């Protein structure tokens, strides 16, 4: 038997595209959608895969990264899935890709108009740790009642002297909706602000899609006197020497030896001597 183009049947893809259009029209608002079971497990990026499957055309060029790298097993698996089911060209070069599906990172290279970045999202609800009830958190969004989130930030600073959320740091989109940026490091948050590329977010298990249209304001939650201040390991990349990229820490032996290298493998390879 043969499967449909990009696995999903056409009616499902249309349904997902409608959800995406609605999400783009209401930046940062989570749109429920009828997520399907995919041949990859929940938590492996089923939301991102469904979004990509619904927008990908035969002329698209797809890049898939996990933890910033193209060669991590899950990225390989998803890239292979689309190569097989949609027959599209794939690339590891950020500049060449028309669609970039990502888990946990935004590429270092500035994304361009016309590109689309698709984030895999495990927990789309930024309030879920504070208010696990979906009915209640939906109301809080409807009323833009975000005092609770700010209280969490206050508690972090009172206890730890700084925001304790090093990744998945909540953002305010277009001055209206509180949004989870997905578990990207706080270091990547500023890249979301007024990004020229379209940003789409898919959460399969939680069955939500949300979006940030190009050039939309995305502000990381903070206090006026404790501005958002992401951390980067204070080292240059051991391979390419970059001092402005996000770094992975590589433990090289069992006596405390370690080195720091770019998490974005494509960025590092382009710069490496």
């Amino acid at each position: 038997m043969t499967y449909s183009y990009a696995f999903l049947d056409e009616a499902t893809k249309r349904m997902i595209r409608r959800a995406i259009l609605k999400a783009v029209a209401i930046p940062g608002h989570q749109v429920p959608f009828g997520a399907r079971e995919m041949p990859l497990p929940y938590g492996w990026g089923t939301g991102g895969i469904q979004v990509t499957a619904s927008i990908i055309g035969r002329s698209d060029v797809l890049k898939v990264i996990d933890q910033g790298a193209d060669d991590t097993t899950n990225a390989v698996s998803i890239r292979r899935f689309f190569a097989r089911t949609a027959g599209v060209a794939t690339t590891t070069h950020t500049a060449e890709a028309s669609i970039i599906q990502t888990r946990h990172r935004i590429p270092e290279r500035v994304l361009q108009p016309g590109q689309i970045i698709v984030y895999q999202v495990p927990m789309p609800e930024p309030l879920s740790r504070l208010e696990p009830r979906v009915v209640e958190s939906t109301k809080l969004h409807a009323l833009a009642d975000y005092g609770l989130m700010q209280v969490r930030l206050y508690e972090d600073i009172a206890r730890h002297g700084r925001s304790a959320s090093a990744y998945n740091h909540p953002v305010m989109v277009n001055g209206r909706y509180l949004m989870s940026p997905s578990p990207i490091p706080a270091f990547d948050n500023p890249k979301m602000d007024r990004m020229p590329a379209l940003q789409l977010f898919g959460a399969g298990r939680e069955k939500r899609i949300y979006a940030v249209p190009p050039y939309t304001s995305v502000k990381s939650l903070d206090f006026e006197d404790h501005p958002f201040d992401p951390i980067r390991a204070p080292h240059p990349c051991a391979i390419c020497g970059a001092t402005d990229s996000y770094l992975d820490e590589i433990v090289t032996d069992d006596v405390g030896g370690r080195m720091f290298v770019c998490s974005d493998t494509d960025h590092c390879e382009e710069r490496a001597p």
Partner: protein
Amino acid sequence: MSAPLMQATGLTLNFGRIRALDDVGISIWPGEVVAIVGESGSGKSTLLRVLSGQAQADAGQVLYDGQDVGAMTEAGRRRLLRAEWGFVHQNPRDGLRMAVSAGGNIGERLMAQGNCHYGNIRKSAASWLQKVEIEVDRLDDLPRTFSGGMQQRLQIARTLVTEPRLIFMDEPTGGLDVSVQARLLDLIRALVAELGLAVLIVTHDIAAARLLAHRIVVMRHGRVVEEGLTDRVLDDPQHPYTQLLVTSVLAA
């Protein structure tokens, strides 16, 4: 005299065959403290819930500042509850976030109103801790490390920090030791007078009503049986039930 801040008329509410509210009317003016007294089951707590929009009456109307509370959307009601109104629960655990520090508890309403200067929020929280007679060095402690009386004072600070126009209090001194009650009542009286707040307080404690209230409303079986200025009602009760209450013949 100016218009009342809140005015309710003809409130009726049945729970099955039980008539919890029977054609109740009540008004409160800005800066006024009104005590609703009566024994358990008289309908006073139900009245407070209806007035604050947390329960819906079968008939009647509640007007706040000219707006019909029953006809408000939930969004409108929640906006009032976090901006212009305050609610002090009998059990402080119902009004506090037990997993959030004292400072975070006090700061929440400020933050909900868009205040996002950490230093200023902290300064307000510290000054409110002082106002409710809690040591400022407890600012970062969790409420569960506080005594019952301190928790209740913290709840009051958390509610009053944004200086709401109307406060609902449901037996705020219930469950506390007598000596702690007296101190809390003194504190409430001082704060209310200083800030000129309007307060609707439900209590079965006639002494508390005498100390705090300008006016008293006496309820029995869901009806208002008597109301008037505090001194008049307590010193010259007209209704036989009020006479019983005042002479403390009834167990509250």
